[in-house]
């Protein structure tokens, strides 16, 4: 559609049907619309080949039995049925992922907000502290897993050594059924709390008009009152943005567990993304893997939708309806 040479539209006075289809009613506008499509075209191809096409394909595959070697075989809803009733790792993997997200998201958001507020006071040295807080988020997840496995070493790891000085016998952390998940939560909080979420909060805080805060202070509002009634409503869109991205990020957790614990011990850190990976790429059950992926998407969409719905009650847009 975008391949027609633009000269034709520019030269002839008539507006071609093609131009009108593109939403242009004059030769100049048609010429411009055509160039718009030309510049858009790489992304259109990418969108179709790498995103929309695969989405449709995976939807189809989720109703088939497909093991790569032979063509897909239609099985109806069997894969979904299997997930809900015949796969004894399905529900546990969802539960572990939710437990992880339920801690990482709220604690992470609160931590990031507190750090951002500390940095937003305009005190000296803030710049260097921001740099320090941000560094962990640059560590590759693989290195993160390797380094923290070493930090969590039951005998000579600095964490358990420090605990022993305080008279506490530290657990085996990632080798212990009960402590593996908390250990992964600690690792991921360390790596993310001072990262992008904090920077976005910082930008949000800097957007709070100081006139409002000054006015409240004159009216006798204390620190908490100013935070609760001015800062928090003003940054609520930022909170929502970080919340939605945080939930999606937490539910997708993969590499950390894959490298540090391999999902163990005893499936204690068998996250849902690990489950999909194993079914699709270790067992090459592409049909079943696609069904799991679709359930995952539905779960994410449901969460996002829920958050957007609930957010109407607590998010305040200063620019009016938008």
């Amino acid at each position, binding site marked *: 559609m975008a391949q027609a040479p633009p000269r034709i539209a520019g030269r002839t006075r008539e507006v071609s049907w093609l131009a009108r289809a*593109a939403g*242009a009613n004059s030769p100049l506008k048609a010429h*411009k*619309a055509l160039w*718009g*499509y030309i*510049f*858009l075209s*790489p*992304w*259109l*191809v*990418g*969108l179709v*080949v*790498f995103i929309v096409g*695969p*989405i449709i394909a*995976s939807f189809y*595959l989720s109703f088939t039995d497909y093991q*790569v070697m032979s063509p897909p075989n239609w099985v109806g809803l069997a894969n979904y049925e299997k997930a809900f009733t015949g796969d004894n790792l399905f529900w546990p993997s969802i539960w572990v992922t939710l437990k992880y997200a339920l801690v990482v998201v709220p604690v992470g958001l609160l931590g990031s907000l507190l750090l951002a507020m*500390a940095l937003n006071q305009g*005190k000296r040295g803030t710049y260097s502290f921001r740099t*320090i807080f*941000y*560094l962990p988020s*640059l*560590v*590759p997840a*693989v290195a993160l897993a*390797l380094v*923290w496995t070493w*930090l969590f070493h039951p*005998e*000579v790891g*600095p964490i358990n*050594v420090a605990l022993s000085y305080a008279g506490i016998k530290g657990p085996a952390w990632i080798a212990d059924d009960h402590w593996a998940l908390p250990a992964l939560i600690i690792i991921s909080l360390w790596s993310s709390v*001072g990262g*992008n979420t904090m*920077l*976005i909060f910082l*930008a*949000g805080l800097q*957007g709070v008009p100081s006139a409002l805060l000054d006015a409240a202070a004159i009216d006798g509002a204390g620190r908490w009152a100013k935070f609760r009634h001015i800062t928090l409503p003003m940054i609520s869109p*930022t909170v929502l*943005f970080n919340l939605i991205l945080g939930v999606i990020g937490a539910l*997708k957790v993969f590499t950390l567990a894959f*490298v540090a614990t391999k999902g163990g011990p005893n499936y204690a850190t068998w996250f849902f*993304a690990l489950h*999909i*990976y194993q079914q*699709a*790429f270790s067992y090459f059950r*592409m049909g079943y893997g*696609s069904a799991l*992926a679709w359930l*995952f*998407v539905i779960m*994410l969409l449901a969460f*996002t939708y829920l958050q957007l719905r609930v957010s109407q009650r607590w998010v305040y847009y200063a620019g009016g309806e938008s």
Partner: protein
Amino acid sequence: MARQQAFLVELAGARPAGRSHAIAWSVGNVLFYLAIALLSVIFLFPFFWTVTSSLKQPFELFEYPPKLFPSVPQVQNYLTALNTEPLLLWVWNSVIVVTLSTIGVVVSSSVVAYSFARFEYRGRELFFILTLATMMLPAQVTLIPQFILFNALGWINTLLPLWVPFLFGGGAFYIFLMRQFLLSLPADLDEAALIDGASYLQVFWLVLLPLCQPALAAVAIISFVSTWNDFLSPLIYLNSQEKFTLALGLQFFQNVPEEGGMPLQHLLMAASVMAMIPCLVLFFSFQRYFVEGVVLSGIKG
């Protein structure tokens, strides 16, 4: 600890009037810096431990209690790590993938963003919303069909799947970021150039791109870091050691046979340091662009 702080602040406030304000302020400040310094220690300690472990001799690794510093720093551990596994080859593969995908992202996302920011055509809003929607999409749902596609193309166990997709717009996040930046530039600029007879391509290349330099830098840096650190795609597409990227190869250090029962943690840590360094260096050199890019993506989100 919070209670302790509150107690100290109260204590300061209870001082004789007149001086109290100044003292409370400075005590508050001292506490602030103490707390933030403690946090910094928590954030920095794992880096310190990685580096110090990487410089220890094998027998020092399992000494109890562990020492903060190696008795004699073993710089040659880094060379040993490079020779234990084909680390240099993995670095080279990572460099290829990162370079090509970053170039692809920068060029194609800015072209597409130019279309979104400056042209009017039917379907633009729809495409844009679709673009934003893909940001929410978990990779898992497109991964399987993409794998099947690349398998059909015979690209499995090559580096192609790791960079070719980035030539087509680079990804929603980068397009969004570039568009936001382009929208912040006055449209009069291109109008003036167009009246002077410039083509759209010339306007883009000669007028807008030079002004987009901060956003281009942000996109390049974020793309560099995310590709360098990417684990899932190499894991799925690469299966022979000589094709690995560094992020993927690193985990195989765990599985190195322990020669004569010697612990290998020092080599593992040395390799981890080498994997971290490029992104840290990049961050220290271009911190401003990093922050601007993240902020730009968050504010209008």
